[in-house]
């Protein structure tokens, strides 16, 4: 059966993810409204579902941890505990930990036991201590009762069920059957004294009671379990008979089905025990732990290894970690609204109808039917286009999933930086390709961090400048033509033109004499290594700069722009393609071949003057474009073609840019502009340098899509002999 269950694991992880999001969102809201019972119930329900389902899949670590969270949540819900900032914080941290545990269950990787342990004990401490004590007692009971029995035993059972037994769908017969399955029932007597006259009898009530002797090899617990559903409401005594002598009467207690508590079973870390017994305080322990050195540091101090060796080993560890993880978890799935699928099926139905009408027309076609044919063709085109749109739609997810991490992030950032920040989200419902959504998370995080740390001023500074103390970061998403725009906006101090310029000059990015417009200055912050932050803080400004953000966005075929006003704020706008499967391309011709150049990377196309080319030893051919020399590539050289023109003055040069680098590519002719569907080269053939993929052109032939990044790299590598 286990295979059948494996197929649900994926659903479980998706569902758990949803529940985690609910829990996290709820906890954040709870901080604002600690009294909101509905909210608590919602959080509890989600936590509860995670616990229930994870247990069924055998993810016991997850189930046990969630159980601890749930216990605390339950106390909050019942009003036995109040939501304090400490508890809210603890629950948020636990949610993070739970996330890790679930990820670990998914990938089969190891979890940092220390964190889990620490949080588990913190959760237990925050929950009523009585709960713990009860669990212990219960456990002791269980262990003593399970050791008490040997081979077969005889029980004397006297049972008077409640009158309403039948009304709960219970049947005494079932219980006797179950007993008979477990052992031998003998000497059964039935007491009918309570049975009223026939006329007064309610057939839905149970008036009987029984006594019997029951011999079994089973555990006492198993016998008790038979009466599980009726015990508390019946008059029931089960007594064990040994050598004619009766052992202790066992009444109402029940064996607990509670899974053994992981905390009690495992030894605690030394530090925890010292804290619990009051030998040291929590602060002292944390302080001591902070001083603990890592093995690498110790080895370096002992001169056993060099720092470089450690660095290499760490790199290796990281790689192994990441490959192991990616190997295991790479079956991605997507959940699609059934509505979308229904519509698609409907459309496919229409397509089939159109197709059959066309083939019928084709069987006996006459020229007079031309208008009909054209009409059907138009219908086919309509069907196809709509199906294409809908299929794309399946990959579309609301961007809200990428936004959902920010309330938490901003909360943590504002606490850390001592600023008051509110986050305003809008346009969460805007749909975007799943891959794009997954890839913009990190760049967005960086931008939000940047806004919180550098953009927004400290509260005092804001008040001095007549601004509200509370700073605002806005995240918005909206459709703009064939693209999606995502903006990250803050009402902070804005970019400082002079500061950026001074820094850029200092770093040699621009010369002192250049006259730059604002629009030329802002993009300077995307240059590698550029950071105007005067001090490096914990939050941002630690090497991973805006250049990475820009590179990531451009890697997705998007663009990033800045709008800013000093003292008023900054808006970063990310323009992203709707999908990665289709690009807007310009078709160009070289000899008889057609190539597609991604439109986003084309800066301009020029026809150079005869004297504009220079050949520089070691750098190949260069072309003078308004006093800037760019490397020039003859596409026919790169792909060994027979061109129409070999003289650049007659041909056309496309100036392409990616990640701030430019290259001039020589082609014979520009044909036009069209959307193309990218087909992978690696999957259908193999990787070819300078080619990003292939597509089927309108006339059915294959066209190659140029890889601009690759071409620039080739222009550096291949140094052609002077032409």
């Amino acid at each position, binding site marked *: *059966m286990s295979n*059948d*269950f494996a197929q*649900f694991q994926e*659903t*479980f992880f998706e*569902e758990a993810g949803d529940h985690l999001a609910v829990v996290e969102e709820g906890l954040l809201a709870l901080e604002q409204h600690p009294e909101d019972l509905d909210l608590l119930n919602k959080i*509890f*329900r989600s936590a*509860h*579902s995670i*616990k*229930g*389902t*994870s*247990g*069924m899949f*055998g993810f016991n670590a997850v*189930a046990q941890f969630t*159980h601890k969270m*749930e*216990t605390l949540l*339950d106390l909050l819900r019942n009003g036995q505990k109040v939501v304090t900032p400490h508890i809210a914080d603890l629950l948020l941290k636990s949610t993070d930990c739970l996330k890790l545990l679930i990820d670990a269950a998914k990938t089969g990787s190891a979890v940092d036991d220390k964190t889990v342990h620490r949080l588990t004990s913190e959760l237990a401490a925050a929950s009523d201590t009585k709960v713990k004590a009860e669990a212990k007692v219960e456990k002791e009971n269980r262990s003593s009762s399970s050791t008490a029995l040997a081979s077969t035993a005889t029980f004397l059972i006297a049972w008077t069920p409640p009158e309403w037994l*039948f*009304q*709960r*769908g*219970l*049947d005494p*017969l*079932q219980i006797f*059957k*179950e007993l008979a399955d477990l052992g031998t029932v003998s000497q059964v007597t039935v007491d009918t004294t309570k049975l009223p006259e026939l006329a007064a009898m309610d057939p*839905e009530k149970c008036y009987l009671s029984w006594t019997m002797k029951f011999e079994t090899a089973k555990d006492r617990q198993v016998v008790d379990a*038979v009466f*599980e*559903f009726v015990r*508390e*409401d019946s008059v029931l005594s089960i007594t064990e008979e040994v050598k004619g002598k009766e052992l202790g009467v066992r009444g109402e207690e029940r064996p*607990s*089905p*509670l*899974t053994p508590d992981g905390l009690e079973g495992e030894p605690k870390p030394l530090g925890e025990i010292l804290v619990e017994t009051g030998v040291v305080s929590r602060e002292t322990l944390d302080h001591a732990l902070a001083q603990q050195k890592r093995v690498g540091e110790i080895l370096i101090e002992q001169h056993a290894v060099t720092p470089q060796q450690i660095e290499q080993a760490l790199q290796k560890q990281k790689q192994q970690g990441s490959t192991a993880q990616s190997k295991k978890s790479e079956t991605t799935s997507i959940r699609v609204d059934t509505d979308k699928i229904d519509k698609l099926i409907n459309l496919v139905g229409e397509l089939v109808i159109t197709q059959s009408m066309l083939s019928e027309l084709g069987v006996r076609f006459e020229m007079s039917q031309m208008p009909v044919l054209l009409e059907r063709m138009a219908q086919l085109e309509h069907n196809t286009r709509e199906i294409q749109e809908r299929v794309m739609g399946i990959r579309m997810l609301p961007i809200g999933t990428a936004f959902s991490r920010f309330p938490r992030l901003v909360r943590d950032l504002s606490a850390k930086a001592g600023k008051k920040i509110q986050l305003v989200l809008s346009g969460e419902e805007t749909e975007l390709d799943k891959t794009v959504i997954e890839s913009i998370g990190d760049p967005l995080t960086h931008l939000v961090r940047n806004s919180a740390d550098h953009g927004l001023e400290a509260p005092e500074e804001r008040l001095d400048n007549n601004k509200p103390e509370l700073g605002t970061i806005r995240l918005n998403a909206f459709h703009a033509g064939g693209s999606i725009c995502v903006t990250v906006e803050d009402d902070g101090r804005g970019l400082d033109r002079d500061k950026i310029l001074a820094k850029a000059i200092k770093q040699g990015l621009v010369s002192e004499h250049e006259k730059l417009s604002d629009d030329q200055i802002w993009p300077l912050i995307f240059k590698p290594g550029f950071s105007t932050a005067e001090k490096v803080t914990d939050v941002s400004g630690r090497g991973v700069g805006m250049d990475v953000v820009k590179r990531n966005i451009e890697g997705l075929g998007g663009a990033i722009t800045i709008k800013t006003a000093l003292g008023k704020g900054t808006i970063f706008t990310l323009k992203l393609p709707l999908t990665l499967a289709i690009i807007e391309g310009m078709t160009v011709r070289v000899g008889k071949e057609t190539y597609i150049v991604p439109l986003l990377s084309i800066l301009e196309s020029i026809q150079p003057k005869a004297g504009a080319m220079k050949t520089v030893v070691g750098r190949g051919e260069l072309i003078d474009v308004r006093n800037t020399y760019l490397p020039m590539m003859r596409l026919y050289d790169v792909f060994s073609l027979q061109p129409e023109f070999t003289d650049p003055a007659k041909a056309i040069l496309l100036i392409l840019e990616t990640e701030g680098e430019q290259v001039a590519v020589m082609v014979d002719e520009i044909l036009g502009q069209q959307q193309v569907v990218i087909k992978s080269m690696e999957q259908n053939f193999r990787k070819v340098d300078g080619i990003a993929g292939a597509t089927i052109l309108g006339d059915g032939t294959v066209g190659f899509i140029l890889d601009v990044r690759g071409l620039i790299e080739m222009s550096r590598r291949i140094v052609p002999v002077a032409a």
Partner: protein
Amino acid sequence: MSKTALVVDDSPTMRQMVALTLTNAGFKVVEAQHGKDAVAKVAGGPKMDIVVTDLNMPEMDGISLIKELRKMASFKFTPILMLTTESAADKKQAGKEAGATGWIVKPFNPELLLNVIAKVLPA
């Protein structure tokens, strides 16, 4: 003749797991997302041999569902199992008062589910 079970849970994973376990054990399974859905699905419909329901659900919770079902003639004596947690002792009491036959403590494994069902299901 195969028996029919009504499985009520708002968590799709849990519901599917229970349903799958029962299907594998030869039951015909009717699934419902919450109490209201369940009531709508059995109203005037086929008689169920057993009901397995979660307690915490939107729209109509498990306790109310059990009360509703017990009011119907066709569910008067039908075994109704509720899925509960060890932390919800009061829920168990409420469930019994509403007319629940028995309970299964979450998390449980499929075998336990089938064992409990065998316990309350008349042959």
